[in-house]
């Protein structure tokens, strides 16, 4: 029997790693992620998880140790946030390029300066081009479910890529919500043992990460891109099977009262839950508006986006990170680019806010929708319009 228990988001992530029976954890503390690795340290110390726990001296080494462990055939997990995430940046490319299915949770946090600890998605967005699968959770149940399902599709021989599950710092990492934990037997049915086809084996020596000239490099990168794009089908299959076993079905873009709506708001992560209440209020007042929650950020869900916008006339995208000097938030930029050839009729509005934990209230989400509609109709004098920010 599955059980419904109160868990903060960090513990939901740790529970998923425990139930996935991870073999190696390389961990370095950083707020607001630390509860994840502390919980895992408890599990190992109490014999509830038989794993090698490597308390490394930096996030760079955390990801490096994950690389070695995953390549040696161990199911491998780590967690980080913000500055720590940036310190691992160099290694992220290698873990993806070496085709290692490491799973990592990122308790998303703003980037300094100013020095901060609170949540936004600036860290996550910096990894867009690293080759990792990137998934955003909107609540603690999704954290558990996404972490567990990541092991399944990342380790699939058709994929063999790493994934990061993004959870909003504090808003999810430190907030207790009810989470349904499955039976171990169900997890085992969903998640086979990890077997990498090209582990480091002294009986079958191979060279990894070999130098390539301009003659061959680009073909490898192209192959990596194709694999990441095609991983979406494997992700969809895994989520279908996940739903069949656990009863919760996921999709790259989740709609909420979005069917047939002329105006859609797109949001990512935990703030979508607040946005849902704003949508309810507007619907109660007879406004034709719905919500799209973007779960899968890489590979980008083009097809799902086209389908979600089938009946829409206006799309308002709320970005939780700022692309300094750029064409707007990262999500609006990519969504626009994805739709340029397909839907020139859609009116867009991009708004950036909720930086560093300044989370909008329900009322402010209503304002975001109202202002978004105005921009979509009349345009904005600014390339990048922020909301809820002075000056």
């Amino acid at each position: 029997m599955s059980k419904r228990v109160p868990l903060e988001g960090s513990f939901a992530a740790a529970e998923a790693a425990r139930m996935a029976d991870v073999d190696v954890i390389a961990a370095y503390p950083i707020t607001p992620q630390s509860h994840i690795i502390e919980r895992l340290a408890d599990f190992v110390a109490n014999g509830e998880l038989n794993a090698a726990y490597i308390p490394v001296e930096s996030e760079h080494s955390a990801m490096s140790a994950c690389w070695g462990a995953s390549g040696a055939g161990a199911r491998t997990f780590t967690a980080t946030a913000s500055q720590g995430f940036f310190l691992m940046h160099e290694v992220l490319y290698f873990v993806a390029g070496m085709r290692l299915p490491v799973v990592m949770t990122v308790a998303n946090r703003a980037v300094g300066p100013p020095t901060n600890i609170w949540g936004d998605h600036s860290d996550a967005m910096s990894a867009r081009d690293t080759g990792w699968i990137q998934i955003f959770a909107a609540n603690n149940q999704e954290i558990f479910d996404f972490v567990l399902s990541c092991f399944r599709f990342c380790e699939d021989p058709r994929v063999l890529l790493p994934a990061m599950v993004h959870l909003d710092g504090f808003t999810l990492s430190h907030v207790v919500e009810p989470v349904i934990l499955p039976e171990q037997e169900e997890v085992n049915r969903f998640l086979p043992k990890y077997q990498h086809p090209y582990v480091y084996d002294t009986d079958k020596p191979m060279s990894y990460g070999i130098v390539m000239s301009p003659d061959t490099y680009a073909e490898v990168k192209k192959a990596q891109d194709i694999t990441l794009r095609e991983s979406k089908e494997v992700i969809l299959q895994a989520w279908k099977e996940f739903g069949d076993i656990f009863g919760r079905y996921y999709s790259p873009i989740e709609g909420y009262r979005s069917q047939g709506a002329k105006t859609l708001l797109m949001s990512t992560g935990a703030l979508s839950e607040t946005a849902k209440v704003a949508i309810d209020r507007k619907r109660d007042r007879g406004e034709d508006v719905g919500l799209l929650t973007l779960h899968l950020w890489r590979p980008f869900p083009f097809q799902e986006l086209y389908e979600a916008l089938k009946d829409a006339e206006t799309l308002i995208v709320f970005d939780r990170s700022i692309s300094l000097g750029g064409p707007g938030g990262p999500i609006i930029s990519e969504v626009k680019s994805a739709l340029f050839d397909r839907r020139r009729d859609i009116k867009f509005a991009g708004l950036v806010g909720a930086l560093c934990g300044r989370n909008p209230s329900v009322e402010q989400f209503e304002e975001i929708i109202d202002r978004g509609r105005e921009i979509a109709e009349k345009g904005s004098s600014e390339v990048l319009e922020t909301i809820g920010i002075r000056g």
Partner: protein
Amino acid sequence: MESEVIKFGKNLVAKDEFLSSGHRACQGCGSALLIRLALKALGKDTIVCVPAGCWSGVGSMYPETAWEVPWMQTLFENSSAVASGIESAFRILMEKGRIPEKHVNFLALAGDGATNDIGVAALSGVLERGHDIVYICMDNEAYMNTGIQRSSATPYGAATTTSPAGKVVPGQTTWKKDMPAIVAAHEIPYVATACPSYPFDLMNKVRKAAEAKGPGYVHVLSPCPTGWRFPPQLTVEIGRLAVETGFFPLYEVEDGRYKLNVDRPTLKPVLDYLKPQGRFRHLSEKQIDKIQARVNRKYAELKARVTAQAA
């Protein structure tokens, strides 16, 4: 499986080769020599992590590889951390019965820049955590692969492309960072210095580093004809002079106990070592005296430590 061996005097050396010929190292490369010897000492069951450096291009350029053991290119600063992940994975997978029990050597093989400079934090972490790995520093005293730039291992006075011998500044202005001492301060089971000019000593030390329970560190002076500006046929000779002058003493620290492996009654003058090398050709008599004084002091300190422990 016992390897076939060749007898050199009292020493037996495995005939196995794990670094193929035909790689792209410069003529007279000290590190090619030391890798060949180290892999002979460690044997087939060895997994090698090598960071960015000469051996990125020298040993493996697609579609070729000179490595006949599992080998990977790591980032500049993380070969030790990657090796620690591999070691941890093998340990837990053996414990869980997922892979057969056997002894595997996990070797991080890095240059002096990767060891002393950019990778020093990662290395310190691996040593402190006690991972059962072997770390070999191939010390050719500068960033040779990128074009002979100074590192913290470059000796005082040496000319490199970023510590050139100019009219005002005569080469490297700082003293070589004493990396083996820094490693020894971690109180790991085994630390040694070695040089391919002393092949049996080098192989024995690599073997001891592998047999130690926990990290074993061997700091190998790796003469570099290209970077040090000497004719390639002198590699072994230059390495010998480094030891015979006391410029690079061969010693080991086994469970905290120091031992000098080559201790001549009198050291040759340091000039014998400096003279054949173009990187030192600009040195003034005053600078050479300064180097000699430093070598004398460091050597005396080392001897004093050995003698005090023996007493």
